[in-house]
């Protein structure tokens, strides 16, 4: 996959409400990674490779750790801008956020949408969606002023779309 300069990308954390609550984050320094894993089971027949079956599904693993340049609240929802941690934990100014997961009995989740807009007009805008993300570890670095977030998405792969850069 092409390298994405995160300084030209925004991360938007979105909930499942209508109208949607969202927090747009312009990343300054740092990184975001996501890993898709597929378990394949190879069955042998008398010691030789034979059948192949797909094993158990694995959720997409996400980590991000960055310093933001700015954060921006929702368009249609007035009120104070929540922090990133607020949106992940459904607290503070994000206490009214609704889980992105359609099943209300499951733990609270959000969608992560990365929009990469290259500064050259010829490059296409790439939108990567990591649906139903739930954080599992938040590692705070007080001296750097950062939080390293790790968690999983309840999907087997991210969705990606490219559109013209207008």
């Amino acid at each position, binding site marked *: 996959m092409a390298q994405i300069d995160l300084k030209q990308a925004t991360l938007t954390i979105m909930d499942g409400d209508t109208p949607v609550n969202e927090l*747009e984050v312009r990343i*300054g320094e740092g990184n975001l990674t996501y890993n898709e894993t597929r378990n394949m089971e190879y069955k042998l027949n008398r010691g030789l490779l034979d059948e192949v079956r797909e094993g158990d599904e694995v959720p997409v693993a996400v980590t991000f750790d960055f310093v*933001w*340049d*700015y*954060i*921006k*609240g*929702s*368009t*249609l*929802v*007035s009120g*104070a*801008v929540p922090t990133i941690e607020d949106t992940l934990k459904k607290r503070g100014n994000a206490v009214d956020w609704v889980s992105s997961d359609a099943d209300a009995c499951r733990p609270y989740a959000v969608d992560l949408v990365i929009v990469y807009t290259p500064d050259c007009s010829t490059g296409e805008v790439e939108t990567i969606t990591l649906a139903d993300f739930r954080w599992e570890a938040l590692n705070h670095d007080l001296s750097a002023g950062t939080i390293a977030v790790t968690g999983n998405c309840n999907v087997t792969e991210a969705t990606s779309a490219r559109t013209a850069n207008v």
Partner: protein
Amino acid sequence: MKMNGKIIEGPVPEVIVIPKGENEFVFKALPVLDFAPFEELCKTPVAPTIVKKGGETFPDFDDKGYNEALTAWAKKKNAWTVITSLKATDDLEWETVVEGDPETWPNYLTELQKIFADAEVSLILDIVYIANGMNQKKIDDATKRFLAGQGQDQNT
């Protein structure tokens, strides 16, 4: 309210009659004086707030989503104004416009266009705009007439 000692009469409806076949359709429009019911159903979009590194905050009026929401809101406000203003028309009933459902408000235009020609629809909408003070030409003409009258008074 009084002006020059005279009581100003309440809103007077603008009227237009559209002859169609053997019928004459009389449309009446009154000014909309209270937009609170509209605001209850369609809140004015708020520009998203940006928080910079140092904690400085400011509204982002250039936000694409905000501008799209503002355009959609303005269209609904215009449609609501037309529908509400035309309530002065006797026995006017819309088939697909539901008062409490903003998504149906723009349907008024489709309904009018099914029956009336474009020019006739424009005439009907004109009385709405005149009633609601949105016809700048009419206001400009009235102002010119007033100022011309004042000039004549000073010359005599």
